[in-house]
């Protein structure tokens, strides 16, 4: 099909009402409903989080019930992520905007019977935060979780059906591509990107416009655009959610980038651990080809662009740009020295632009709404918004998008709903294995590239892990080093050997055998690795250790000098003890101890022999009187 602007407009008109309904609240929507084919729309999240908690069964139940009751004016839409992953499966009914959380198959039947047919919202099934004391129901964007958020990259996630290109077109999809191809020169696109202030969302924060300008300036008959969807930071799932919820935004942005630098082929490199994202991308690419928005002579402008998906195979280092390209070439994903930079010599030795998923997700809107609009959001040097995957010890686990400059406190206490179980906030970790931790004293730091690196952390790709007082910072540093040690590709020795030595030092400390000299060694080794490793994986591998050592030195000292673990996490440093007042002498612990370390006679308080004890914790979990404690 040859796509034209008239056809695009016609598709948009045809689907506008269907999609617009989901963005309005009840009163505004009622007028629109009169013309609509559907009286109600039921949106169900089909992202990885909700699918894992059973949203497929909910969709099946809803559809079966609708068929059985012959409700032809009710539509079920499978969308991408709404953000509140811990509350899945999430169901929203429009036009009311009723937000059902943790929906079960039985709940789905009740929604159809009571809400859709009976006209009465099942209040007990709603997300409690959306129900006011007076019984009024709030729209989702009025809840604490959403109020401070600003959705640009996630604009369509949870709104459209990602497997239907027409719903994307209904919300101005592919209009930016048309604008660029028909009315903007390559340099004008670059100028717009530069003026917008958009910086790479993969972590390093390099200005996107500059990257494109370099690649455009490189001479070459063949050039490539690539998308880095190898989201390897454990605990981060922003890119996954964008691909699952709005794949066409990435395709459109890549086509714009290709036009700008003069490329005709593109690759999206996705982690194989994301099967749903891969499926949606495949569908989206096929549909874009079918609608003439990929392929030959797009919009009749003579511009050709083809897009291919390449799957990763579980190597963290492939998130590094040169390693990613080596992997697309079908080789061992080892990084290459830079320069030459990819903009000069990248994939298959040709000039290449590589951007992260979230970076691309901003592009079409910058083109449509203008650089001034985008640069008005955020701080002086960090423009726009940032998506974070909020996880760990936090009440509202999920995906959040906030303007740059929002403080960590706002994210944790307001959006995140605080730390569960009455525990205290200890630290937040950003940037995953390459990043650092932010201690409680810096909770009011605004989140932008410069402020985070100033306090020894980094923006990273957007993983934001919250830790409470039960998290041991030495253990967390060890956890990240285990990760980088395993994922080091081995090409350069500072990384291959350095990560292992660092890990060994941390293992020694958590085993209670550390010395003060070990801390000096850690600092020295870290500074060497920072300057001598070949790629960012090694250069930043020591960050988790250096930053925990900076802010939680006393915790390291407790492990080394006092031989204790304040968070009671490091097994070798724990001591189990029986409180004699509470012990009834039931002998249960002694009988269950695998190493016979507990002595005592019936009805007399028992005692643990610390030398024999292997700290397995069996006694503590068996004791019915709470008489065994950890010191």
């Amino acid at each position, binding site marked *: 099909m040859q796509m034209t602007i008239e056809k695009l407009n016609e598709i948009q008109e045809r689907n506008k009402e269907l999609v617009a309904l989901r963005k309005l609240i009840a009163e505004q929507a009622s007028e629109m409903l009169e013309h609509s084919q559907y009286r109600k729309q039921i949106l169900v999240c089909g992202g990885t989080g909700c699918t894992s908690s059973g949203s497929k069964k909910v969709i099946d139940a809803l559809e079966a019930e609708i068929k059985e009751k012959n409700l032809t004016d009710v539509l079920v839409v499978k969308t991408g992520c709404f953000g509140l992953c811990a509350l899945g499966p999430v169901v929203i009914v429009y036009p009311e905007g009723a937000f059902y959380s943790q929906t079960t198959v039985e709940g789905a039947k009740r929604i159809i019977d009571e809400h859709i047919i009976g006209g009465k919202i099942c209040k007990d099934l709603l997300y409690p935060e959306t129900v006011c004391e007076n019984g009024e129901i709030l729209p989702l964007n009025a809840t604490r979780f959403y109020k401070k958020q600003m959705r640009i990259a996630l604009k369509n996630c949870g709104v459209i059906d990602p497997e239907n290109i027409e719903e994307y077109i209904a919300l101005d999809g592919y209009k930016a591509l048309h604008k660029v191809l028909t009315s903007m020169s390559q340099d004008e696109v670059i100028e717009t990107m530069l003026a917008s202030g958009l910086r790479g969302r993969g972590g390093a924060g390099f200005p996107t416009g500059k990257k494109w300008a370099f690649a455009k300036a490189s001479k070459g008959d063949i050039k490539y655009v690539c998308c880095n969807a190898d989201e390897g930071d454990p605990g981060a799932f922003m890119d996954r959610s964008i691909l699952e919820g709005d794949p066409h935004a990435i395709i459109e942005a890549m086509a714009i980038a290709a036009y700008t630098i003069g490329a005709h082929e593109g690759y999206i490199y996705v982690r194989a651990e994301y099967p749903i994202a891969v499926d949606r991308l495949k569908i989206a690419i096929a549909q874009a080809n079918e609608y003439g928005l990929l392929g030959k002579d797009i919009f009749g402008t003579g511009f050709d662009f083809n897009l291919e998906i390449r799957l990763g195979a579980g190597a963290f280092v492939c998130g590094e740009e040169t390693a990613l390209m080596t992997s*697309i070439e079908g080789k061992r994903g080892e990084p290459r020295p830079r320069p030459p930079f990819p903009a000069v010599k990248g994939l298959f030795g040709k000039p290449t632009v590589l951007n992260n998923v979230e970076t691309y997700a901003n592009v079409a809107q910058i083109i449509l709404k203008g650089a001034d609009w985008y640069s008005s959001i955020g701080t002086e040097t960090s423009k726009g918004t940032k998506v974070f995957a909020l996880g760990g010890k936090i009440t509202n686990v999920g995906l959040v998008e906030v303007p740059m400059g929002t403080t960590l406190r706002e994210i944790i206490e307001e959006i995140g709903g605080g730390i569960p179980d009455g525990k205290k906030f200890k630290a937040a970790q950003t940037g995953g294995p390459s990043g650092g931790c932010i201690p409680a004293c810096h909770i009011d730091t605004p989140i932008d590239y410069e402020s985070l690196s100033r306090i020894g952390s980094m923006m990273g790709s957007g993983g934001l892990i919250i830790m409470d007082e039960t998290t041991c910072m030495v253990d967390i540093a060890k956890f990240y080093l285990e990760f980088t040690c395993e994922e080091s590709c081995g090409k350069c020795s500072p990384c291959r050997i350095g990560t292992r030595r660092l890990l060994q030092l941390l293992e020694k400390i958590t085993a209670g055998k550390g010395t003060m000299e070990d801390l000096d060694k850690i600092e020295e080794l870290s500074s060497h690795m920072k300057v001598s490793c070949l790629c960012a994986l090694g250069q930043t591998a020591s960050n988790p250790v250096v930053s925990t050592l900076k802010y939680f030195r006393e915790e390291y000292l407790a492990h080394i000098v006092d031989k204790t673990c304040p968070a009671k996490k490091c097994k070798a440093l724990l001591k189990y003890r029986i409180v004699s007042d509470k012990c009834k002498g039931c002998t249960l612990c002694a009988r269950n101890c695998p190493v016979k370390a507990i002595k005592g006679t019936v009805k007399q308080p028992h005692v643990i022999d610390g030398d024999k004890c292997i700290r397995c914790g069996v006694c503590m979990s068996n004791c019915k009187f709470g008489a065994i404690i950890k010191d």
Partner: protein
Amino acid sequence: MDNENRPVFRGTPKQERELKKVIEKHKNQPGGLMPTLQEAQGIYGYLPYEVQKMIAEGLGVPLSEVYGVATFYSQFSLTPKGEHRISVCLGTACYVKGADKILAAIEERLGIKTGECTPDGLFSIESCRCLGACGLAPVMTVDGEVYGKCTPESAVKVIESYLSKEV
């Protein structure tokens, strides 16, 4: 490769035909080795020496290069996996919520370590890095089915439910 300790290759003619098709498809594609290995593992479940050799000959690349790529990426396996593949997420969100204890409980229940397969070939345990289901942390999967908000006890129960299906 150590010839003596290699498990016997039990590839069928049908699998070989499928593999030939895959090789044909990727033969002239730039960077076609990775997708070929991925699809080959889909056919055989793992990448034994015999399969690597067929790929090397089919694509016209040295066997050393095929082996190099197959051993570089953690998702490629040179040894057979269990009938049920257990995978425990050790991503940060899961780790902070106690994924290490879940892994330990499963290892103890099955009497094998991570990366190993039970002698009857029924289960193999792997750890993986973030499935992106952090909202449900800690998470494990069995044959791709996701089990969220696990405790050591519930994880062991899940394994036992697969055991009872076998009997």
